[in-house]
């Protein structure tokens, strides 16, 4: 019988523009990789408060449609034929959640109260070798020109045979 499981891997980032190479070890009975999810956590309080507020609610001072803050780039590589099978961006708060929302009085629009339901990005990759190579590049620190200490979490959903 096949069962779904999720593997959690933490990546610690401390310096601007830092590149991280990491490995994700899968259980031996893994048959397929079926989904990828990402999250991140700010470990130190950044000194730049204006930038902190951007990470929480986005900056709507100009009422323009804006891009969400980019935290970093993530790539995952399988040792199988599929090679690089995932290339994605780790994003901060959804910057345009309140765009065009006329009810934004008293109940501020925020990711935690108005955010959409999270779902994994679906992939379908064989998992014969049980090791995934990962690569992460910091963009947040580089864009702010500061060393920002944060942690990225990569969730790999797998199908295992019981």
């Amino acid at each position, binding site marked *: 019988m096949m069962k779904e499981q999720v593997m959690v891997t933490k990546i610690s980032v401390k310096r601007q523009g830092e590149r991280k190479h990491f490995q994700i070890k899968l259980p031996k009975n893994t048959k397929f990789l079926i989904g990828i999810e990402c999250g991140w956590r700010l470990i130190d309080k950044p000194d730049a408060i204006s930038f902190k507020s951007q990470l929480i609610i986005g900056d709507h001072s100009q009422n323009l449609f804006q891009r969400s803050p980019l935290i970093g780039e993530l790539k995952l590589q399988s040792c199988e034929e599929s090679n690089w099978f995932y290339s994605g961006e780790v994003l901060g708060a959804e910057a345009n959640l309140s765009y065009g929302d006329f009810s934004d009085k008293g109940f501020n629009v925020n990711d935690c109260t108005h955010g959409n339901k999270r779902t994994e990005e679906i992939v379908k990759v064989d998992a014969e070798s049980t090791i995934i190579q990962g690569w992460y590049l910091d963009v947040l620190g580089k864009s702010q020109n500061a060393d920002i200490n944060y942690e990225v979490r990569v*969730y790999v959903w797998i199908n295992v045979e019981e």
Partner: protein
Amino acid sequence: MLKATKKRFDIKITQANSTVGDTFELDKNIVKVHGVLVTSDKDDLLYYRGTQKIEINKEEFFPDNYESKLLMSGINVAPKHRYYDLGGVSPGNGRVQITYNDLDDGRSIFAPYRVSLYLDCEMEDEL
């Protein structure tokens, strides 16, 4: 006859950077658990600081360090679609265990808060 029911279990987080665990028991007449949802009285703290492990019948469905925000749904999501779909698992011995971990995050300031675990269940009608 089978009918849908929702169950809620609460834990209190009173200290920053602490781990709180609890085990809850489902009613005997619950035959399936269809979905999971976590909420809080301080959504931002749960969203930014929380991770948890959830086990049902000693089977781990979400491992340690699985972020709470991945199991939250905002008010923009239709009420019928808010739960994370587990696909109808058997509750077995009916024990639901949650181990919640609070961790500092640069975007939040700690205050005591409540974490609520909601389960979307199917139960046999007692009548």
